[in-house]
C-alpha cells in the first residue's frame, strides 16, 4: 500500500469524527487532528481502534502516543503494516 493509498484510507477512518470535511479533503502530513480537524480528544481512541481494524494492525501505547498529526499517523500505520 502506497502512502497515498494509506492516506485515502485514513481519511475514511477520520471522517466520522470531524465536521471539518473541507479540511479533511485536503489534509497533509502537518494537519493536526485536534487543532486543525477539531476532533475531540475523546475520539482519539476511536480513531486508533478504527485504524487497527481498517489496516488489520495493532497499535501499541507508545505508537498511539505519536499519532498527533496526519503524518505521524501515516508513519505509525505504515510501520505496523510493514511489521505484519
Amino acid at each position, binding site marked *: 500500500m502506497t502512502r497515498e493509498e494509506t492516506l485515502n484510507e485514513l481519511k475514511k477512518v477520520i471522517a466520522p469524527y470531524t*465536521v*471539518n470535511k473541507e479540511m479533511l479533503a485536503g489534509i497533509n502530513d502537518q494537519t493536526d487532528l485536534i*487543532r486543525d480537524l*477539531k476532533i*475531540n*480528544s*475523546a475520539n482519539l*481512541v*476511536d480513531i*486508533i*481502534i478504527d485504524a*487497527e481494524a481498517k489496516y488489520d494492525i495493532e497499535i501499541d*501505547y507508545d505508537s*498511539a*502516543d*505519536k499519532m*498527533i498529526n496526519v503524518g505521524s499517523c501515516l508513519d505509525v500505520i505504515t510501520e505496523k503494516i510493514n511489521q505484519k
Partner: protein
Amino acid sequence: MISAGNDIVALKAINITRTKQQNFYRKIITETEKALYDKPFSEGLPFEQFVWLLWTIKESVYKYLQRINPGLIFSPTKIVIGQLDPPSNNTISIFESRGFNDPKVYKGTAEFGAHILYSRSIITEDFIFSVVNHINGFERVMWGIKLIDSSEPDRQSDAVRVFAIAMLSSLFPDAELEIGKSVYGYPVLLKNGDETPVPISLAHHDRYVAYSFQM
C-alpha cells in the same frame, strides 16, 4: 507551579458498547486501574462511566502538566490513578463554584512520573467532569459547567470562552478580558491585552462546556 486542568465528557455522546470492549478501554486504563472498579465504591457506577471518569481525570492531569511542560504528549495509560474515593451520594445541583465544599464528588489521586496531582470529579446522568490540582485542596480553584445549544466545534469554543469570561469579569470588574491561546495551544487569560499569570483550562464535549482556573 500552579496550573489548571479540567475535562468534561458528555455521556450521551459516548459509545457505551465500544467503551466496554477490552481493546478500547485498555487504551485508557491499566489493569491496576481496572482493579479499582472491583472495589466497593463502584457499586452502581456503570463500567463505561468508570472508564470515562478516569479519562477525564487523566486528560485534566495532561492539561495541568502541559502548561508546565509544553512538549508533553497525552498518554492516558502513563497517567496512573492510584486512589479514587466515592461520594456518599451523587446528587449534584451546583454547576459553578469555587472549590468543592460539596462532599458529593469523587476524590482521586493521579501520578505521572514524579508528579502527583489530586482530582475532584462530578458524575451526573448527563456528564462526567473532572478538575485537578497540585495540592489536595481546591479553595483557589474556580470551575463551571454549562449546557450549550450546539455541539459544533467553533460554537463550543466561543461558548466556553464567554462562560469563563463571565465569571472572570466578576473578579476583574474594570478590566477588558479575553482568552487567547499560547503558541503551545493552551489557553491564556489576557487582561487589557496583556497575558496574565492566571492559569485557565477549557473543555468541551458534545453540548457541554466547562472551565477551571486558579485565583
